C-alpha cells in the first residue's frame, strides 16, 4: 500500500495539538509505516509544500495573512483537510475576546503604542475560509481521537462521529455531578463528549474545551446556571473561553 502523504501544521495556536500527536508514542511507529510526513515543520526539517497531500491536518485559528496563505495552499493541495483541535474548529482560546474587544485594542495592549503593529485580524475557525472535510475537537484533542482519525484516513475512510455530551460519559464513570451536587459552573450538558469526562473525573468542572455538542440546549444551560446564582457575565465569560460565539437562545 502506498503510504499516505501528510501535512501537519499549525496556524495561530500553541502547538499543543501537534504535540499531542507526537505524544502518541505507541502509535508513532505504525503511523510512520503508513504515512509519509511530507510537511511537519514542528517535528522535522526539510519540509516540502509543493506536493499533493492525501490529508492536511491543521491546528489553530486563522488570524494573520500568513495563516490564510498557508491554509489556502494546503486546501488546494490536499484531498482531505482536517480541522485539528478546538482553535481550528471554533477559534479557541485566541478568539475568546473576539466579541468583547476590538483587535486594535488587543494588539495595543500587547505591543504597546508601537508605530507599526503586526497585521492580524479576529481569530476565526478554518471553516470560515475553506471547506473542511473532517474535525477532531479538543484542547488538546484526545490521543485516541487523533489516532482514530489517522487510522481511518489510512483506511480510506473517516471515523464515525460521537454525538453525546460530556455528561453522558461523566455519569457513566460514576463521577460526582459538579453542577447538581456541588453547585459549580459546569458546562457538561452542552459540550461535546469523547474526553471520557477527563476533568469532572478529577473534580474539575467542564470548561467546554471541546466546543458545543450537537443540538446543545444552550438556553436551558444558561437558565440552569442563572438559577444557581451565577451571573450572566461570568457564564458568558466561561462559555466563550473556547468558542467566542454562542447562540444563547438556542434550544435545538
Amino acid at each position, binding site marked *: 500500500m502506498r503510504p499516505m502523504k501528510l501535512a501537519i501544521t499549525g496556524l495561530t495556536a500553541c502547538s499543543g495539538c501537534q504535540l499531542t500527536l507526537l505524544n502518541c508514542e505507541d502509535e508513532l511507529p505504525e503511523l510512520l509505516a503508513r504515512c509519509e510526513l511530507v510537511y511537519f515543520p514542528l517535528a522535522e526539517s526539510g519540509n516540502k509544500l509543493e506536493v499533493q497531500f492525501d490529508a492536511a491536518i491543521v491546528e489553530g485559528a486563522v488570524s494573520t495573512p500568513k495563516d490564510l496563505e498557508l491554509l489556502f495552499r494546503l486546501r488546494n493541495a490536499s484531498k482531505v483537510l482536517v480541522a485539528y483541535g478546538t482553535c481550528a474548529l471554533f477559534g479557541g482560546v485566541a478568539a475568546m475576546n473576539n466579541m468583547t474587544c476590538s483587535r486594535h485594542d488587543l494588539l495595543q495592549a500587547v505591543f504597546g503604542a508601537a508605530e507599526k503593529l503586526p497585521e492580524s485580524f479576529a481569530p476565526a475557525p478554518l471553516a470560515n475560509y475553506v471547506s473542511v472535510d473532517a474535525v477532531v475537537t479538543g484542547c488538546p484533542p484526545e490521543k485516541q481521537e487523533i489516532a482514530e482519525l489517522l487510522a481511518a484516513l489510512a483506511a480510506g475512510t473517516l471515523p464515525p462521529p460521537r454525538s*453525546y455530551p460530556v455528561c453522558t460519559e461523566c455519569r457513566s464513570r*460514576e*463521577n460526582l455531578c459538579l453542577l447538581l451536587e456541588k453547585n459549580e459552573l459546569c458546562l457538561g*450538558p452542552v459540550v461535546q463528549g469523547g474526553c471520557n469526562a477527563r476533568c469532572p473525573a478529577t473534580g474539575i468542572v467542564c470548561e467546554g474545551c471541546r466546543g458545543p*455538542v450537537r443540538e446543545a*440546549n444552550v438556553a*436551558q*444551560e444558561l437558565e440552569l446556571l442563572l438559577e444557581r446564582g451565577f451571573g450572566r457575565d461570568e457564564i458568558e465569560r466561561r462559555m466563550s473561553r473556547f468558542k467566542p460565539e454562542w447562540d444563547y437562545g438556542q434550544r435545538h
Partner: protein
Amino acid sequence: MANNFLKTSRLDQFLDALRLFGELHAPTTSESGVHRFSLLDDPADLNLDYRRTQIPPKKYLLPFREEILHCAGDTYREGHCGAVDMVLFGVHSCDLEGIAYLDRVFLADPADPGYSARRASLTLVGVTCHPDDFCFCPEGTVSTACDLFLAASGDGFHLTSHSVRGNAILAAAEHLLEEGVPLQPATSSGLCFPPQDPELRFSDHPLWEKFASTCVSCGACSVCCPTCYCFDVREYPALSGGCTRIREWDNCLFASHGEVAGANFRPERLDRLRYRFLHKYCGFTPLQGISSCVGCGRCKEVCPVDIDLRELTVAPKQVQP
C-alpha cells in the same frame, strides 16, 4: 427447618463465604461521595445503607463501552466478553427487576453472547431497601429475581434462596446461620409503574412542550436507568490494519438516534421524548405492553431540569410556565 437467619455481627464472615462463589462486588461510596457498586476488598467499605447507586448493576452485564468485534486479516471475530465469576451483593429489588428485564431482552433468541456469558457467571444477592422521596416503587416490594435475598429483620437478615446457586450459598454459610422466625411470603415483584396507553404520547398535556424545551439531552436519565439498553455500534480502524467494532450505550434523546442517511425520523426533541415515553412505559416488540420502569428513582434524581416523564400520565395540575 433449615437455619436461615444471619446476625448482622456475622455479616463479614458471610461476605467471606460469598467470595467462594466469585469476585465480590457490593455497594460502596467513592471518595467524592458517589454510591456505586464496586469490588469489595475490605468489608469496612461496604455501605449497605445506600439509597441507590449512580449507575445500576447493568454496568456488569452491558458495559458502557464494549469491543464486540475485532477484525484482523479481514475476518471478524467476537471480542472477549470478560466474564468472570462474580457475586453482586446488596442489590435492591428495583435493580433486581431491572436485570430481569434486561434478561428478557438480551437472553432472547438469538442470545447476546457477551451478555449471556457475563450473566451466567453473575450471582445476585438482594437486600431490603428503604425507599426515599425519589423512589416510586410500591413499599415492601421484594424481588425474587435473584439467587438469594436478605430481608432485614431486627439484628440481622432472613435469607431466602431463589435458585440452586442460592441453595449452595446457604449450604456454604450454614455455620453462620441460626434459626429464625419464618418470614411472611414475600410480596411478589410488584409493578412499579403500570404500562401506559401508547396514545398518551400524543396527549395535549402542556408538560410535553415544557419538557421538550427544558431537556438538555445530557443523557443522564438513560445512562442511569437500570432498564435502558439502547446502544450505538461504531467501527474504528487501527493503524496496524485491522479494526474494532464497539457498542456503546446510546440515548433516545440524542439527535442522531432516529437518523438515516438524509433524513431523521425523530427530528425534534419532542419526538424523541415521545419515543422515550413509548419505550419505557408501553414497550417495544416483543415486550409490548410491558412497562420497564422499576421505580428506582434514578432518572428523577439525576435530571438537571427535574423532568419526570411519569407526570405526563396524570392530568395536568398547575404547570409552571
